[in-house]
C-alpha cells in the first residue's frame, strides 16, 4: 500500500466512507432519536417489497450507491432509501416515472 492519493478512476465511490479524511475532525453527533414517521414508513415499505421478492437489499444498495455525491450528502438517510426504491420500481416497470412526479 502506498500513501499516494488514488487516481481519479480508483477513487472510491462516495458511500465507501471508511477512513475518509473529510470527517476526520468532526465529532460524531450523538443523535439518539428513533426514525420519524417518514423513515419508519420507508423502512417498512422496503421490507414489504423484499418479502414480496420485488427488490433485494443489494438492489437497494446499488440504488443508494449510485446517487450523485452532492445529492447523497444533501438527502437524509431515509430519503436516500426512498430515492433508491423509486429508481428501482421505475426501472423494473412496476410504476411509471410519471406516477412519482
Amino acid at each position, binding site marked *: 500500500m502506498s500513501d499516494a492519493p488514488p487516481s481519479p478512476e480508483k477513487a472510491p465511490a462516495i458511500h465507501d466512507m471508511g477512513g475518509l479524511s473529510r470527517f476526520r475532525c468532526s465529532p460524531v453527533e450523538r443523535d439518539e432519536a428513533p426514525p420519524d414517521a417518514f*423513515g419508519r414508513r420507508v423502512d417498512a*415499505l422496503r421490507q414489504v417489497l423484499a418479502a414480496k421478492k420485488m427488490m433485494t437489499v443489494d438492489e437497494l444498495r446499488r440504488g443508494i450507491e449510485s446517487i450523485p455525491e452532492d445529492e447523497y450528502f444533501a438527502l437524509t438517510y431515509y*430519503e436516500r432509501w426512498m430515492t433508491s426504491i423509486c429508481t428501482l420500481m421505475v426501472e423494473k416497470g412496476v410504476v411509471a416515472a410519471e406516477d412519482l412526479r
Partner: protein
Amino acid sequence: MSAPARAASVARLEKLLAALMAKGLVTEAELAEMQARTDRASPEIGARMVARAWLDPAWRARLVASGSECAEAMGVSMAGAPPLGVLEDRPGLHHLVVCTLCSCYPRAVLGYPPSWYKSFEYRSRAIRDPRGVLAEWGTTLPPGTKIRVVDSTADYRWMVLPMRPEGTEGWSEDQLAALVTRDALVGVALPVLPMAAAAE
C-alpha cells in the same frame, strides 16, 4: 443527519405508495404490520443474550459459535436475515462495530440503528480513529488494550459480547441484562455498574 425529511420527499413517498396500492401490490395493512414488527425489536434482546453468556459457559460457547442460532433460540425469527456474528471481548482485546458503507446492523436483536451509527462521521472515523470515537462516549479502555474494528455488511452482521463488569458476582440474569446497553453491544461503551456511572 436525522433532519426531518422535506415535504417533497414525503409527498413523493405517498405517490409511490399510491401507485403500488392502485396495482394491489402493497396494502396499508401490510405496511402497518411490518412497521409494528420492526418497532418491537430492541437492544433488550441482545442484552439478554449477553447476560446469559455471562452466567452460562455453554450458552457463551454457543453464542460465539452462532449468534443467529442463539437469537432463534430466544424466539427471534432470523428468517431472511444475514448471519449474526458475536465478537467476544477479553482482557486486552475490545471490539467495535461499524458499517462503513451504510448502516448494516443486527436489527433483529438490537432494533433500528441509531442515527449516529448511520452518520458520515461515525462511518468514516470508527476505522481510522476508534479510540477518538470511544473518547467521545467517555469510554476509556485499560492501557494496552487492542481494538479490533469490525465492518458489518449486508451479508454478515455483528454484535459485541462485552466483558462482565467486576462487582456483579451473584447477580441475576435480569440485573446483568440491565447493564448491557445498546452502545455496549456496538462497542462504543462498556457495561458499567450504576454506582460507577454515578461516581463519574
